[in-house]
C-alpha cells in the first residue's frame, strides 16, 4: 500500500505524508473535511485539503496560541475563542482554574463532531462546564459584544474559504470593541516565508495595527505548516507581551507544557530581520 496525502505549499512546493488509513471524509455546508491516519504524524485533520493539525505537532500551535496571552494578562476570566473546532485551544484553556467562562464560536458544527469522534487528543474538553459553543459566523458573533472579554483567541483557517472574514479590519475592530479595557487578542497570523502566505501575513498585520494600540508578532516552529515557520499576532489594549510577562506567577501555576516556557515566550518575540522588515513595511 503506497497511499500519500499531499498538499501544495506553493505552486512548486508540496508536502507529502504517507497515509495508513483514510478515517473520514465528508462535505459540510462550508467545506470538505477529512481525517487521515499516518505513520509519522499520527492522525491528522484537513479542511478543503489543507492541513489543520496533526497529533504529533499540534501541541506547538495550541500551547503558543494559548499560554502566551495567559502569561501576560493577570486576570483572565472570560475568554472568546473563534474557530478552534478541533478542541486544542479549549484543552489548553481549561487547564486554568481562574477562567470562568469560555465562549467558542465555530462556523462548522461538523468539524466539531468529526474531531470528537476521530481526534480525541485535542477534542477532549468539549464537556467542560465553563464552555459554551455557538455555531455561527465569528464576525457576526463578535459584532454584538462590547467590553465583555478579557481574551479573544482567533484560531482561524487561512484567509480564503470560510475563514476569510476573520482577517478583515471589521473583524479586528469588532474584537477590539468586544474586549475589556485591558483585553488581549491573539490570532493565527500566517507565515512570512512563501510569497502568498507572506502577503496575507502583512495584510493581517496592517489591519491589526490599525485597530489596536499594541500589536506585536511572535513565532513558532510548526513542521507540517508551509515552510514550518509560523507566526501569531498579539494585539492588546494595555499589556505589552514581553514587558508585562508575569513569568514567576505563571510558573507557580505548575502547568506542564512541551513547547511553551516563559523563557521561550520572550524569545518568540525576537523575529528574523526579514520578518521585522515586512512588519515595518505594513505598519
Amino acid at each position, binding site marked *: 500500500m503506497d497511499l500519500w496525502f499531499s498538499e501544495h505549499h506553493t505552486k512548486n512546493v508540496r508536502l507529502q505524508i504517507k497515509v495508513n488509513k483514510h478515517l473520514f471524509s465528508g462535505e459540510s455546508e462550508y467545506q470538505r473535511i477529512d481525517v487521515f491516519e499516518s505513520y509519522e504524524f499520527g492522525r491528522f485533520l484537513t479542511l478543503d485539503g489543507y492541513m489543520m493539525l496533526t497529533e504529533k505537532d499540534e501541541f506547538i500551535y495550541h500551547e503558543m496560541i494559548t499560554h502566551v496571552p495567559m502569561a501576560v494578562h493577570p486576570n483572565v476570566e472570560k475568554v472568546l475563542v473563534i474557530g478552534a473546532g478541533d478542541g486544542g485551544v479549549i484543552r489548553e484553556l481549561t487547564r486554568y482554574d481562574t477562567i470562568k467562562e469560555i465562549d467558542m464560536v465555530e462556523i462548522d458544527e461538523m468539524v466539531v463532531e468529526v474531531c470528537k469522534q476521530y481526534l480525541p487528543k485535542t477534542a477532549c474538553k468539549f464537556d467542560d462546564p465553563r464552555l459554551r459553543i455557538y455555531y455561527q*459566523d465569528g464576525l457576526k458573533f463578535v459584532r454584538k459584544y462590547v467590553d465583555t472579554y478579557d481574551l479573544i483567541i482567533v484560531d482561524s483557517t487561512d484567509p480564503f474559504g470560510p475563514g476569510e472574514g476573520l482577517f*478583515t479590519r*471589521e473583524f479586528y*475592530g469588532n474584537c477590539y470593541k468586544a474586549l475589556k479595557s485591558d483585553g488581549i487578542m491573539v490570532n493565527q497570523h500566517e507565515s512570512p516565508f512563501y510569497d502568498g502566505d507572506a502577503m496575507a501575513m502583512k495584510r493581517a498585520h496592517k489591519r491589526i495595527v490599525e485597530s489596536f494600540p499594541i500589536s506585536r508578532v511572535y513565532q513558532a516552529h510548526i513542521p507540517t505548516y508551509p515552510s514550518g515557520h509560523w507566526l501569531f499576532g498579539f494585539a492588546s489594549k494595555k499589556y505589552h507581551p514581553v514587558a508585562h510577562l508575569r513569568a514567576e506567577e505563571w510558573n507557580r501555576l505548575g502547568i506542564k507544557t512541551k513547547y511553551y516556557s516563559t523563557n521561550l515566550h520572550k524569545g518568540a518575540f525576537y523575529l528574523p530581520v526579514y520578518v521585522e522588515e515586512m512588519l515595518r513595511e505594513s505598519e
Partner: protein
Amino acid sequence: MHLDQRRAPIYEALEEFKKARIVPFDVPGHKRGRGNKELTDFLGEKCLTVDVNSMKPLDNLCHPVSVIREAELLAADAFSAAHAFFMVNGTTSAVQAMLLSTLKKGDKIILHRSVHRSVINALILCGAVPIYVNPGIHPTLGIALGMSVKDVEEAIEKNPDAKAVLMNNPTYYGICSDVKKITELAHKKGMKVLVDEAHGTHFYFGENLPVTAMAAGADMASVSMHKSGSSLTQSSFLLCGKNVNANYVRQVINLTQTTSGSYLLLSSLDLSRRNMVLNGKEKIEAVKAMTEYARQEINQIGDYYAFSKELINKDSIYDFDITKLSVNTTETGLAGIEVYDILRDEYDIQIEFGDLGNILAYVTIGDNPKNIERLIGALSEIRRRYKKDKTGMITYEYINPIVVTTPQEAFYSETESIDLEKSAGRVCSEFVMAYPPGIPILAPGERITEEIIRRILYSKEKGCTLTGPEDMKVEKVKVIKGEL
C-alpha cells in the same frame, strides 16, 4: 413563456464554431489570442477563442437572421416583450434608442429629473424638449422619489402635445412609481411610455417584486442585464411592446451601434437570460433574504437607517425594490459619500455609491451571506470609530431646474468658459453631475443659480466626483454667450 428557455442559441453556435477549428483570415487580428500572448494570459484562452467577428454561422447583430434572431425571440419571450434587442453599447445605447426612435426635434417628453445622464444626452442628439416633473424629495432621507400620478397628470394636461413619458423603474435607491397607472394615463393621450429599467432586471424573474414595464403595458424598456441580471458589463436589452415598430427601432439602433458586436457580450446576454429564467426565482429569493437580514442587522447598529417598504405611500413611492440595500447615514454625522470612501479605503469593501446622505450596496445573485456579514461588521465599526455631530450636514434637496432652451440648442450654441462661482444667472451649456449616481445638477440649457453653485461646491468638498464639464476640476463652467 412559450419557447424552450433551456436553449442559448448564440452560446451554442459559439461552442459549435470552436469545434469546427476554422482558420481565421478575418478580424479580430489577435487570431484567437495567438497574436497577443500577454492579453491571452491575462484574460484566458477560452475568452479569446470566442472573441470573433460576425460570420454566417454566428449571424450578424446589425441584421440578425439566424442564431441572434433566435436568441432575440427567446429573450422577448423571457421578458414578455413583443421584441427584444441585444445591446452591446451599454444601457446608454438602449436609452438612446428608446428616445431617438420616439422623438424628433422639438418634440416634448415628460420625465423625472433624476434620470440618468444618458437620457439627457439622447435629448442633445434628437433635439427634444424636456418637461421635468418635480420628483419630490423624501423629507428625512433626502432622496428623490418616484413620479406622483397627480404630477404626471398635470404635466400631461399642460403639455397635451408631448410625445412620450419616461420613468425609472425603479430608481437607483429602489423606489418605483405607479408604472401601470402612469402608462394608462399616457396612453389615453396617445403618448408613448418609455421606462429606464437599468436597475430592475430582476423584476422580470423574481416573485413578489414590483411590476415590470412590460407587464404594465409600457412601450419600451431599457434593461441593464449586466446589473442585477449578471451578464458582462456593457451588455443590455432593449425591450419593445406590441405597439412599437421594431424594424424602425433596429434602424435607429444601427445609426450608432458598432458593426462589430462583441460575441463575448452577446453570449453573456444569451446565457444570463437562460440562467435567470431557469434559476432566477430561487436565486432572487436568496438575495431578498440577504437584504432583509442585512437591513434588520444594520438597523440594530443604531444611527443607520436601512429603509424599505415602510416608505411606501402608494403614490410617489408606489412600491419598493427590497433587493436594494440603501442605507441613510445622516444620523452618524457622516455623509454617504464619506462612508462609501471609508468602506473602500479601510475595509476593502466597494459599494455602488454614496450620495450626500445615503449609501447603496448592490446585492445580487452573485453575493453570499459571508460578504453580507463583512458589510454589516464594517458599518458597525465605522459608526463606532467615526460617528460625529451631524450639524452642518446638508441633505439633498431638489433644485427645480429652470430650462431656458433645449439641451441640443444649448450644447451647440456659441459658448464661453467662466468661473463657476461667478456664473449665477447664466445659461449652462454642459452637464454638471455628482458621480455616482450620475443625476444631473445642471443640464445643458438650464439657468445657473446661487443655490446650484452652493450644491456643486458642497458635493466637491464632500468628495463626490464631479463630472460633465470640460474643465475637469469644475472650477470653470461653460455658458452660452450673451443674455438669454
